[in-house]
């Protein structure tokens, strides 16, 4: 579905249009609620679920999408499954699972100004690796995670799969309960009290044992960018492009060289000198209202020097941003303001990065060809994306911050 308009007829490829039509017809026939294209609640499933209060602590949530761990931010066990498994769930209400191992990733301390949830999760993945969480469910813990808003936690949990973990979660706390209060599908009245009592029993005990543990110090996390074709290829913006010669073994050396070749980068050159030709702010990682507020604050009064677009995660995020005047700030700064959707996160809906072009993107995957054939992706936070848009190169956003 394009983010240029909301008209079904605008999808001019018949087999794609029929996918949307089938969805509408089948949900209607089977009595499933659909937030369709004309519904202002429509958007990316991982934005809409929490926003509507559909995702709640203690729930088991599955979805035919690998970023389902996002919903773990409210204390749910949420993971992605394949199409056959979705069919199995719809047919039987059940799913065969073997028990996952537990991993706890603790981040403690205070984040410096200009450092956001996206930088935290990129730093975590850089540390534990793209397969570092394989076979595990990650619990994100520690004072830094506790002090994140639900939006920030959603960003962190969203990228669990990029560390190989199918699920990632944060124990529910008062921030969670406050976030859920009054949301359309959250429990109300006496039900709320009952739910709350049950939710309060969910967090891990202090002496809980984990199969694996990892620790990060928040003070050491800086604005991050990726330089390669795996989300684990992330480094502080102040670093240099790494040298494959320094890799530990021949296989990693080869993989790193292939990544640099694809990305068109020279070892040893500063990451902050990499020129970009596009900027994308959106996706289920970073398209919520807080992301847009933070981005607008940096964009205000500046001007994008490369094509840049902002794609809200849902119709309600879009409406909220417009009520706050964020769309005007972005438009004045030369950013495109689109209808909600996945857009340039994935090269399958018309929003593409051209072959060889380089995009600073707030999405979650910098895989080869992810944003279009031959496209080069640098994953960044929303404020870092704005910094790239207004300078035309990867830039440390801390240099643009105003008191």
């Amino acid at each position: 579905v394009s983010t240029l308009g909301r008209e079904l007829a605008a999808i001019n490829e018949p087999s794609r249009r029929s996918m949307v039509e089938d969805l509408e017809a089948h949900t209607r026939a089977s009595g499933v609620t659909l937030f369709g294209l004309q519904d202002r609640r429509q958007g990316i499933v991982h934005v809409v679920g929490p926003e509507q209060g559909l995702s709640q602590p203690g729930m088991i949530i599955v979805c035919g999408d690998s970023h389902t761990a996002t919903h773990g931010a409210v204390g749910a066990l949420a993971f992605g499954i394949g199409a056959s498994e979705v069919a199995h769930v719809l047919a039987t209400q059940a799913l065969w699972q073997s028990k996952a191992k537990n991993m706890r990733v603790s981040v403690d301390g205070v984040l410096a100004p200009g450092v956001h949830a996206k930088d935290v999760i990129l730093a975590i993945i850089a540390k534990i690796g793209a397969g570092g969480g394989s076979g595990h469910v990650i619990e994100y813990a520690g004072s830094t995670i506790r002090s994140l808003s639900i939006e920030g936690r959603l960003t962190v949990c969203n990228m669990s799969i990029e560390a190989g973990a199918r699920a990632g979660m944060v124990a529910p706390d008062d921030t969670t309960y406050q976030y859920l209060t009054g949301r359309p599908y959250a429990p109300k009245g006496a039900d709320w009290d009952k739910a709350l009592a049950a939710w309060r029993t969910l967090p891990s005990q202090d002496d809980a044992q984990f199969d694996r543990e990892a620790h990060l110090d928040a003070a050491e996390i800086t604005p991050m960018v990726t330089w390669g074709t795996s989300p684990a290829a992330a480094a502080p913006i102040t670093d240099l492009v790494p040298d494959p010669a320094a890799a530990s073994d021949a296989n990693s050396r080869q993989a790193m060289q292939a990544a640099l070749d694809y990305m068109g980068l020279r070892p040893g050159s500063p990451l902050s000198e990499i020129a970009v030709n596009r900027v994308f702010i959106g996706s289920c990682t970073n398209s919520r209202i807080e992301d847009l507020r933070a981005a607008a604050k940096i964009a205000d009064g500046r001007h994008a020097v490369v094509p840049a677009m902002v794609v809200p995660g849902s119709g309600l995020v879009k409406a909220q941003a417009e009520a706050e005047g964020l769309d005007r700030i972005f438009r004045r700064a030369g950013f495109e303001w689109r209808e909600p959707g996945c857009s340039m996160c994935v090269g399958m809906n018309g929003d593409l990065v051209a072959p060889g072009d380089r995009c600073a993107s707030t999405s979650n995957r910098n895989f080869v060809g992810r944003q279009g054939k031959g496209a080069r992706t640098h994953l960044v936070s929303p404020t870092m994306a704005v910094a790239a848009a207004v300078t035309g190169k990867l830039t440390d956003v801390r240099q643009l911050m105003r008191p």
Partner: protein
Amino acid sequence: MEPFKPLAAVAAPLPLPNVDTDQIIPARFLWRKRPDGWGHLLFHDLRFDDKGAPKPLFVLNRPEYSAARILVAERNFGCGSSREHAVWALHDYGIRCVVAPSFGDIFFNNCMQNGLLPVQLPAQSVAGLIEALQQAPGLQLGVDLEQQCVSGPDGVTHAFAIDPFRKECLLAGADEVAFTLGLAAKIEAFEQSYERELSWL
């Protein structure tokens, strides 16, 4: 699903870590339907150049591997997106077994749903197999699910572990939905107690 039978076939080495499902099947093809056939799109951008001509150096384009039905890959194979199309592409191409030190979890489960066996072996064993396959292109490996072992060209066998339930399903080519529906009464009972306990849902 077709039952998994003992396999003796040419194995192709793919010594790249973190081969994601976007590489196995690029997103731009995903609007196609299952019966359309997916084998010709497998590893599309690794396998073909911009004009659609086969890249001669890519392993599956080399004549020695044209009969490959086994893939020996590196760690974290099939990471990334949940797209089952990645498994469809491997399956339709003719691959029946992927051997690797580790897999993307969702990809691993998707394999099981399509009669494709993901075999997890220690990194050292995989490295040894890859080296042997590279030195003598076109070598065959044996895969016996019943016995849970892979036999290498040197006659060495590598035992692997697999969840017993998954093993039975693969060997029988079982229809998982039909099997689970046989447990409908239990599922129903669970649902009722669940709804009583979590009455706000």
